[in-house]
């Protein structure tokens, strides 16, 4: 059984078919890319998988458990986490607090424990803080732990978002345009970084990206969307030579191909 199985996923906004008949099976440990011109429905697929939108039709299963209809926090707890196209940190909170709040699923106390600062509360808080700090250390962000997230430079904020996504110990990580706004040098280190995360945390990674250099270099498999429909699927080499893909990208800027 694959880790994630998406079958016949279809979604409408009003009358508009934003995603049509989307199928994808992700195996444990894979690194898969999702590409397509702007407005192709890529982020919508991520929103459907993470529960931000409820799919109109089709099924999404994680380890065989149906996800459609479940609220986002449950899906997050089941092992899918993500980052966003534009950075969505909780700006006024410190970096550490950003990571801690993403541990919500691991809170093991009730309101009374909290109001009275009972041992169970202290124990759980200690655990969460230790785990959050450990993550920050792993990602070399611990010196920023007590700074408000908004004070960090753009690139660091992107990294904090990835750390935050790791807080719930996901098995599947969705990255929505991780290279957006980065220069070629930064993209190079990002590629290493993504590989490192996958190996360090034994993750499956699925990413949306416009930067072809990144997608073609690190993804093992690529799926191409246009107007919500899948137009191609295959290895980077196959995709690069696919006539339909080239057509879809005509007029679009094709970076690095």
């Amino acid at each position: 059984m694959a880790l994630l199985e998406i079958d016949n996923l279809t979604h409408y906004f009003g009358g508009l078919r934003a995603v049509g008949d989307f199928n994808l099976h992700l195996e444990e440990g894979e690194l898969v890319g999702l590409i397509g011109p702007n407005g192709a429905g890529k982020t919508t697929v991520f929103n459907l998988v993470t529960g931000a939108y409820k799919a109109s039709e089709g099924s999404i299963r994680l380890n065989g458990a149906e996800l459609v209809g479940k609220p986002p926090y449950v899906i997050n707890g089941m092992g899918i986490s993500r980052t966003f196209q534009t950075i969505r940190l909780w700006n006024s909170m410190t970096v550490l607090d950003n990571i801690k709040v993403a541990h919500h699923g691991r809170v093991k106390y009730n309101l009374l424990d909290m109001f009275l600062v009972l041992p169970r509360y202290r124990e759980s808080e200690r655990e969460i803080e230790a785990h959050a700090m450990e993550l920050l250390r792993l990602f070399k962000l611990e010196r920023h732990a007590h700074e408000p997230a908004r004070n960090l430079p753009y690139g660091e904020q992107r990294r904090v978002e990835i750390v935050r996504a790791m807080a719930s110990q996901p098995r599947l990580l969705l990255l929505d345009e991780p290279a957006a706004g980065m220069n070629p040098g930064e993209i190079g280190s990002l590629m290493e970084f993504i590989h490192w995360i996958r190996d360090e945390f034994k993750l499956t990674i699925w990413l949306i990206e416009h930067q072809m250099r990144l997608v073609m270099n690190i993804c093992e498999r690529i799926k191409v969307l246009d107007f919500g429909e899948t137009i191609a699927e295959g290895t980077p080499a196959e995709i690069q030579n696919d006539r339909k893909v080239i057509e879809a990208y005509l007029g679009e800027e094709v970076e690095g191909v």
Partner: protein
Amino acid sequence: MDATFIQQFFNALQLGSLYALIALGYTMVYGVLLLINFAHGDIFMFGAFMGVLGSWVFGWGFVPTLILSMLATALLGVTVERVAYKPLRAASRLSAVITALAVGLLLENGMLALTGADPRKYPDDFFATQVYQIGSVSISTVKLLVIILAFALFVALFLFVRRTKWGMAMRAISYDKFAVPLMGVSQDRIISLTFAIGTGLGAAAGILWGVAYPASLDTYMGMLVGWKAFIAAVVGGIGDIRGAVIGGMILGFVEIFVPYWGQGIGVSSTWRDPVAFALLLIILVIRPTGIFGVARRQKV
């Protein structure tokens, strides 16, 4: 349909028109600034008080007094916007709302402190009332005046907003602040104009209210009425002119017909307010952005 029903119908139409006139002030300001102008109820009070000035001190008749009140109140509205709200345009929206609340308190209490608490009313000959008998239904000229004048103002406003360059700029500004200067109109002027029209209509409502309900003229008259009209504007879909009219009418009809139908089943007329608010609450829960409001999808 019996005569009292028809009579109540006209009462509701009158009350609804007045609420709608006030609700327009809220909705127009919200439309351009996304600001809940909590001071508007007290602007309405100020309009009614300008009627006292015109009628008693100047000895003017209804029409000149109405015009005086609308102009003076519009001036007040524009001044309030320039002095208190404009400096906060860049700050968080909440600061402006809190300021609006404070301006409202300042107006009603300041007016009370400066003019005293004696009960006021317009002169008896301010608007000579006649009562027409149509069958067993009697309709006073005051009611006709309120309803007809209110509708004339709605139509005028609707045409203004739809047909003129200024009106279109007003509608555009809530979508895109930066596009308006491109249309060759200054943003500040549009905002001032909006306040002037909104508060002017509020003043008209104030005078009509004083004529229709003579016992209500005091410095706190705008408090509850203002809050109610505001909720009416929201129920209609704040920012939309038709919404303000419909919301005001709904409120007017509920307030008249709850006691009218309620007396048959032993519900006292004082249930009017809670029932009206509960109904508005239910409408809002079913349609969170009001009847004419457009839900804006939040982007993920």
